[in-house]
C-alpha cells in the first residue's frame, strides 16, 4: 500500500542550526501516527519542514507518492495538508467566522458541509461565531484551529500538541474531537500527553535529537514501561 505521507532521512535547518537530522516515517491511509519525544527533540520542526515553512531541507517528503519537498507552504497546503500548529495560532483580529473563511481552500458545497460538521463538533465556536478570536479562551482557540482544518478536503492533517496548556476538562473535549477526526482523516499527532497519545494513536515514532530512533504500535508501547522511560521520561 502506498503511504499518504513518506519521510525518508529528512533533514532541515533553522538558520544555521541543523535541527532535523534524519527523520524517516510512513503514514498509511486512515492511520493516526503519533510522534513522541522529549521537549526539543525536533517534533515541531519536523512538522514545519513537512509544511514547507523552512527554507533549507533535504531528504524525501512524498505526499501520496508525489514529492513536495521544496514547495512553498501555500502549495503544500493546497495539495491537501492540514496543519494545526503548536500554540494554536488563530488570527486575533479576525472573527471566528473570518478565521474559518480565510482557511477555506475551496468554497464548494462539501467544504460548507464539513464546516457545519466542525461547528457541530464544537458548539462553543457556533456561539462565538461573530466574535473576534482575541476574545476566545485557550480551549476555544484550539477548537477553532482544529475546525478550520476540518472544513477542507485533506489527505493528511498534522496536529502539534493540541493539549498543551489546556485544562484537563478541555483536553478531554479536544481528545474526543481527535478520536472523531481519526475516523475520517489520516493524522499525524505530536502529543506529550501520553494517555491522549495512546487513546488516539495507532502507531508511534519516537524522535531524539532530531532523529527518528524508534517506532512501533501504540498498544505495545503502552505496555512497555522500560521503553517509555528510555525515550520519554514519563513522569519526570
Amino acid at each position, binding site marked *: 500500500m502506498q503511504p499518504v505521507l513518506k519521510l525518508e532521512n529528512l533533514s532541515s535547518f533553522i538558520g544555521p542550526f541543523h535541527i532535523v537530522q534524519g527523520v524517516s516515517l510512513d503514514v498509511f491511509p486512515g492511520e493516526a501516527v503519533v510522534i513522541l519525544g522529549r521537549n526539543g527533540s525536533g517534533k515541531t520542526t519536523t512538522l514545519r519542514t513537512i509544511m514547507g515553512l523552512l527554507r533549507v531541507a533535504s531528504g524525501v517528503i512524498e505526499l501520496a507518492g508525489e514529492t513536495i519537498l521544496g514547495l512553498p507552504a*501555500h502549495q503544500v*497546503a493546497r495539495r491537501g495538508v492540514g*496543519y494545526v500548529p503548536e500554540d494554536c495560532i488563530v488570527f*486575533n483580529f479576525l472573527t471566528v467566522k473570518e478565521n474559518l473563511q480565510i482557511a477555506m481552500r475551496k468554497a464548494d458545497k462539501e467544504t460548507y458541509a464539513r464546516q457545519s460538521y466542525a461547528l457541530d463538533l464544537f458548539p462553543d465556536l457556533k456561539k462565538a461565531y461573530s466574535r473576534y478570536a482575541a476574545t476566545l479562551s485557550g480551549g476555544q482557540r484550539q477548537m477553532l484551529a482544529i475546525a478550520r482544518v476540518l472544513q477542507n478536503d485533506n489527505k493528511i492533517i498534522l496536529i502539534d500538541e493540541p493539549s498543551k496548556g489546556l485544562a484537563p476538562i478541555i483536553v478531554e473535549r479536544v481528545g474526543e474531537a481527535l478520536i472523531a477526526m481519526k475516523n475520517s482523516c489520516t493524522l499525524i499527532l505530536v502529543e506529550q500527553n501520553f494517555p491522549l497519545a495512546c487513546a488516539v494513536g495507532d502507531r508511534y515514532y519516537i524522535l531524539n535529537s532530531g532523529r527518528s530512533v524508534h517506532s512501533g504500535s501504540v498498544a505495545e508501547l503502552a505496555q512497555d514501561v522500560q521503553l517509555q522511560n528510555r525515550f520519554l521520561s514519563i513522569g519526570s
Partner: protein
Amino acid sequence: MDTFIILLVNGLADASLIFLMAAGLSIILGMMGVLNFAHGTMFLWGGYTSVWIMARTGNFWLGALGAVAVGALMGLVFERLFIRPAYGKVTAQILITLGLMIVFTDLARLLWGATPLPALRPAVFDGMVALGGVRIAEYRIFLIVIGVLVAIGIHALINRTRIGMVMRAGVQSPEMVRALGIDISKYFTLVFAGGAALAALGGALYVPLVGSVWSGMGMENQILAFIVVVVGGMGSFIGTAAGSLLIGLMGTLVAWFFPPAAVVANVLLMAVVLVWKPAGLFGLEGK
C-alpha cells in the same frame, strides 16, 4: 476662537497629509516586517510627477492621478526587485531601502534640478472661505476631506474585503497565512504598491500647500510618518489615524506658539509614548 479655528484646520490638513504617508508605512512594517526607508521616495516622486504633468497639461487632477500611477508602479518594482529577496533580513532591508531612497532622490535632482520648482493649487480650491469669522484656505478644507475619505476607504478595505482579511491575519502571522494555503507574497506586492500610491498622492497634494517641490522633501516628511508609526503602533489602522492627528495638531500648535520647539516636541512625544506604551498607542503588545 479665531486662532483656534485656524490652528484646528491647519492641524487637520497636515494630519491628512501625514496620514497618507504613514498608512502605507505602518501596514508594510506590520505585515511584512519591512522598515521601508524608501517610502518618502514615493512622496517625493509623487510631488514632482504632479508638478511635471500640471506644467504640461494645466490639469491638477491629471497630475494627482499621474502621481498615484507612478507611486504604484515604483512600489511594484521596488517590492518585486529589491524587497522580496530581503524578507526576514532586517539589516539588508534597511540598507536596500536607504539605498533606494538615496538613488531615487538623486535621480529626481538630476531630472528636475536642485532648485525648488513652483507648485500651484487647483483653480477650484485656490480661494478662501469664511468659517466662523475667519478666512480659511479652501485647499486645506479639501485636504481634510481627502484625508477623511481615504481613511474611510482604508477602513472599509481592511474590514470588508478579502485583501483586508489577509492583511489583518498577516500582521499577526504571515507564516500561518501561508500554511493555510494562501500565497501571501501576492498580497505583499499589492499592499506595498498600494501604500506607495498613497504616499505619492500625499506628495502630490502636499506641494501645492507649501507652494513648491524640492528634492529634500521626501526625507523630511518621511521622518514625520515614522514618528506616527512609532506613536500609533505598527500595523494598526486606528493607531496610524490617531498618531497622524496627534502629530499634525501638535506640530501646528507648537509652530504657532513656540516655533523653536517644533522638532523637540515630536521627539518628546515619541519618547513619552515609548516609555508609557512600548508598542505604541494601539500596537500589539509583544507580537
